[in-house]
């Protein structure tokens, strides 16, 4: 079984060799100095990189990996400790990031390496320019002489679809992290069993929405509208709306008059952001969206369709019942109006992940979370933060999941 090792840049190697290297050598520890230094150097280079200017999501990644943020996470980690618990890494973590969210593989690795784990990350064979670039950057930082430790505990590899390889790696893993899809998760569980002691963090297909207080949006001045539009744009359009946290439904809270005023200002502003940033969907994706729209009209409660330039299509629905959670990505938003958030109490399901909000009160948001009681929705965050992969994701506390808690009682 041969794999291509991209980070460190080692070319084709036999899998047993890669696994042996990761298994040998001293174990890491949470928030080790050399790991923090590596992340900081990587982030610093990324922030001054011209490529990052074109890809705002790379800048967000860099912000997570800079020293100040890492030290904050370290303090948070230490504050969450107990004198009778020693937190240690699991060992080898096997990451299977999705192909369609380019930067996710770095996030996945960062959370795990901060916990002190060794990591094997499988990269998609269909690599994008952004992924290539990140790999080159990371490999060059790992090449430096004072990074021998972190270098020994990382392999980012590629291999063409081969269940045998996935199974061989899984058999040696202490933790496996699978970032969707539902079909991939099911296949991997079938084809690549984990050892009995190992745990799996699985991030299945999710659905997300946006809730806007109509009155608040309608009463924004132009600057405020533009700022809100920028944030909505980054939530919706990064990764072509294919990320699970990207909103696909906009729920306006307010009466019809307020909503009419608000939407007339917001959607054109969002389209203007897309134009300013030169965003255009691919032809094939555009046609796919058009086909989806026609199917949605036949299958669901769609009553109207408005396009705001080529980037954004909004489908109005007159009720949420019968609205399927299918979605093509590529700048499509369902739109509904409700008098309050209570309207979605019964509609939310486990698949619903992120609700981004603007113009709604603390009581309304906390009230929703309480009334839902775990039906669904794992994150309620302000507009603009949908795609920020944080410590709490899909109901997991990544900071806690990636370490083991050793309980020590003396006498």
């Amino acid at each position, binding site marked *: 079984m041969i794999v291509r090792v991209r980070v460190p840049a080692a070319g084709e190697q036999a899998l047993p060799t890669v696994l042996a290297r990761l298994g040998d050598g001293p174990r890491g520890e949470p928030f080790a100095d050399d790991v923090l230094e590596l992340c900081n150097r990587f982030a610093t280079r990324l922030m001054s990189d011209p490529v990052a200017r074109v890809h705002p999501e790379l800048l967000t990644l860099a912000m997570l990996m800079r020293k100040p943020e890492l030290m904050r996470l370290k303090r948070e980690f230490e504050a969450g400790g107990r004198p009778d618990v020693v937190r240690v890494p699991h060992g080898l973590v096997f990451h299977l990031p999705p192909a369609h969210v380019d930067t996710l593989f770095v996030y996945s690795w960062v959370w795990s390496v901060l916990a002190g784990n060794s990591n094997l990350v499988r990269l998609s064979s269909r690599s994008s*320019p952004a992924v290539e670039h990140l790999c080159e950057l990371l490999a060059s930082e790992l090449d430096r002489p004072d990074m021998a430790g972190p270098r020994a505990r990382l392999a980012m590899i590629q291999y063409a679809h081969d269940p045998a390889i996935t199974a061989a790696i899984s058999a040696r893993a202490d933790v496996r992290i699978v970032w969707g899809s539902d079909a991939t998760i099911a296949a991997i569980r079938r084809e690549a069993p984990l050892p009995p002691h190992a745990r799996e963090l699985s991030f299945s297909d999710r659905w997300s929405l946006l809730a806007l207080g109509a009155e608040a949006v309608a009463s924004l001045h132009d600057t405020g509208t533009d700022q809100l539009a920028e944030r909505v744009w980054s939530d919706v359009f990064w*990764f*072509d709306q294919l990320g699970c946290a990207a909103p696909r439904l906009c729920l306006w809270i307010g009466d019809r008059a307020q909503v009419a005023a608000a939407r007339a200002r917001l959607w054109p502003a969002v389209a203007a952001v897309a134009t300013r940033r030169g965003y255009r969907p*691919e032809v*094939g994706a555009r046609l796919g969206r058009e086909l989806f729209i026609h199917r949605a*009209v036949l299958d669901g409660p769609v009553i109207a369709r408005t396009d705001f330039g*080529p980037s954004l299509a909004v489908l109005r629905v007159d009720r949420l019942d019968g609205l399927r959670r299918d979605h093509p990505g590529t700048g499509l938003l369902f739109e509904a109006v409700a008098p309050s958030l209570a309207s979605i109490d019964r509609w939310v399901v486990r698949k619903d992940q992120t609700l981004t909000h603007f113009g709604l009160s603390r009581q309304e948001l906390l009230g929703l979370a309480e009334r839902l009681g775990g039906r669904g929705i794992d994150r309620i965050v302000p507009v603009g933060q949908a795609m920020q992969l944080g410590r709490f994701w899909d109901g997991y506390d990544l900071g806690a999941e990636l370490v083991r808690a050793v309980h020590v009682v003396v006498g």
Partner: protein
Amino acid sequence: MTVEPTAGGGDAIGSRADELLAAPLHGLRQEDKDARLSEALAALTQHHRAACAAYRRITDVLAGGERRYARLAELPWLPVGLFRSHELRSVPAAEVVTTVSVVGGGPSAGIHLDRATAARSTRAIERVARALLGAAPLPMLMIERGGLVAGEPRSARAGGIRALSALASEVCFALDAGGELDQAAVEGFLATHGARPFAMVGHTASVWEQFYPAIASWGLDLSHGTLLHSGGRRRLTVQVIDNATLKAKLATAAGLTRIHNVYGLGEQPGAVLVEGEDGLLYPPAFADVVIRDPMTFDELPTGKAGVVQMVSALPTSYPGHSLLTEDLGVVERVDVDVCGRLGKAVRIIGRAPHHRARGAGEPFPGEVAP
């Protein structure tokens, strides 16, 4: 949909279709064709809105409902993929005589033809084939498996084979049950018929991947043959073979010079574009091509590449008269009579590329290049 469409009522649109079927195949000036087709298609749009509840719902929500259409380009279109997922029918189920299955469609997906539509599709194929092959029935070498018609009787491919077989004096299948070229069959056919005019028909991919390598190595003489090849476009975007190269290689290898590429949708049987001597594709009198900007879906002028929309006056039993394909193309010129054909002269570029999306702001690889 649960509402059953009403029977009959298609006489006026049927006779418009018949008139266009009887018109000179490539003899209408574009202006004249635009006028006649837009009238026929506007009537078809109204007909399908009245007869097919799903079509009425789509056109109500997405195309402004009941309205007048002054020009062909104003007519609504359906994405061709809709027939893979939904049943769209404008006649009662009892009047359907054939359902042509669509590639990638589920078990109930398909094109529902009533007697009249099926007859017109067959007539259309006949007209196109005779224009290329001549009036007299010819011996025909099908670059297909003989078992295909029995094995997938509902496929568009089988339908095409049946229609063409009816025009042939005799038919020989060049591929064996395993899909490999049957050397004995081919050489036998040529030994009997190769010295006089004969026809060959097949998918472009089969011609290039199987037929060409074989004839090149067997040293066959195909100089009396006429080849019609079509489809297989999905595979061909992966291959590196353009039409001009294919023609040159066939001419060199086997003396085959009468070669016509044919383009059409399985969802619009009979509405096929044929390759002229200038290498461009010509729509028949009863069908046409509109090129649309992929971002705005506005009609694009001659010379600008975009997404191909196909219109056909033939579909009366299902709302397939105006379909947006997944192909890119360009109208190179109009009414320039280089090979006895008027109307639009089209080049089909290939499938619209569809990669998994990248991050926002990245130049997208699907840029349409003429």
